[in-house]
């Protein structure tokens, strides 16, 4: 059926229906006829209008981004949202703990060095990193170094990390991204935090650990505050 044929058919259908409805006596009888014959259409249209309105309203008013989203990988310690670490950080940074936009995710278990094919936690990490949600990522130093090759961690030499570089440049760990632009060039992809509060006070890790910043993070200041907090600057 061509669009022209469809248009003609719809015109004909509208003409016949108008004639039919005009022939029915009484408003109630007309309404009953319309409901009986077109209830699916009516319900669907109402639903779609409602949903479109709801979606537009939500997109316009809902704050989409987290102020700080940090993943703590391969830890069995309670360092997620609402943990002692979380409260201490929120207090230190002067954020509002009721806002719900500071997220510490401690449900992540993968090692980039040992292969991540089919690992749902890694796929979640990729979603957060590529979706621009991920701000900080804490994991074993060697695993982070390997992950740095994927290009999902921010090059700490970049302009937006100038303040972090000034404070923690001596702690940087380097990796060579697979990206052609970086061929033969090592860039800083993480900060060594093995001697931080995270290990000493909160006992979240035993082995050397580092923190990387999501390549698409827009909350680098919040990560810097986190670094200041755990490294007691």
């Amino acid at each position, binding site marked *: 059926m061509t669009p022209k044929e*469809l248009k003609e058919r719809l015109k004909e259908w509208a003409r016949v229906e108008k004639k039919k409805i005009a022939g029915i006596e009484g408003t109630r009888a007309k309404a009953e006829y319309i409901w009986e014959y077109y209830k*699916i259409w009516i319900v669907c249209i109402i639903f779609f209008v409602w949903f479109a309105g709801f979606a537009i309203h*939500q*997109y316009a008013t809902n704050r989409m981004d987290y102020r700080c989203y940090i993943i703590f990988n391969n830890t069995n310690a309670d360092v*997620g949202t609402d943990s002692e670490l979380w409260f201490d950080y929120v207090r230190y940074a002067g954020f509002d703990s009721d806002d719900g936009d500071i997220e510490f*995710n401690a*449900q992540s278990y993968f090692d980039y060095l040992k292969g991540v094919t089919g690992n*749902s936690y890694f796929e979640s990490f990729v*979603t957060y990193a590529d979706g621009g949600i991920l701000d900080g990522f804490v994991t074993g130093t060697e695993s982070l170094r390997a992950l740095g090759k994927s290009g999902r961690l921010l090059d700490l030499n970049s302009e937006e990390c100038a303040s972090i570089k000034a404070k923690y440049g001596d702690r940087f760990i380097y990796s060579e991204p697979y990206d052609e632009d970086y061929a033969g060039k090592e860039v800083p992809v993480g900060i060594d935090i093995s001697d931080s509060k995270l290990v000493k006070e909160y006992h979240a890790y035993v082995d050397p650990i580092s923190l990387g910043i999501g390549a698409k993070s827009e909350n680098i200041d919040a990560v810097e505050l986190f670094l200041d907090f755990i490294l007691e600057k």
Partner: protein
Amino acid sequence: MENARTRDRVSKTIMYIVLIIMAFIMLVPFAWMILTALKTNQEAISVSPFYIFPHNGWHWETFSEVWKSYNFFLLYKNTLLMIFFRVVCACLTATMAGYAFGRLKFPGKNFLFSLVLIQMMIPSTIFIIPQYLMVSGLGWLNTCAGLVFPGIVTAFGTYLLKTGYQGLPKDLEEAAGIDGCNIGQKFLRIMMPLTRSSMVSLGIFTALFAFKDLMWPMIVCTSVQTTTLAAGLAKAQGQYGSNYPQMMGAAVLAVIPMIVIYVIFQKQFVEGIATSGGKL
């Protein structure tokens, strides 16, 4: 005659033996899971093959411990709500789309249906980032609506129902048209009831996929209050990483709803596989 009967009996006996062995192999992981849940941690990690049954008593308290520490009631509630809404939404949208693609004529039908098919050919993980951003934009993170979101429409279901509608005779629709039914009435009163078996298959597949879905609940539900059984179990793997009885206890509790659903809908499960030619 006697020889043929003997041969028949022998072949049947061999077949039963093979089937019993296969059934046993299938049941071993479940038995291992239940027995491990009832052992002490030391027994559970023992490499001795003779530690099949618990030696130091049957530790039924593992289940109550896991139930309390994980709030399984909440996990069951969240999972069942997610399954219910996903099944309802999938059946509703797939049956309408299936009818449109299978029975109606409209411009761009083939192009639109090829888009549906393309969606089936692309790995679902590719859609996760845009879906996450949409759910986040709608303010549905950590909500049941967020959990249901990717299951509202289903390409597989649309294809399944389209095939179902195409298999129905045209005469039925024509007769309904002569009796004065419009498209909506033909769909709702005549055609849809006839695709019940396809919808049951779709419902079963949707329920199973929703139950097994780990990644999406893990991504959209970081709160314990809204997470599902699969994501809760994944957390147990992290928290009880070295406590196998606790992990297996959680796993046993997690499979109970599916076993109950299977027992109730056993006939439909088998019919569903036969109808759709799929595997569970």
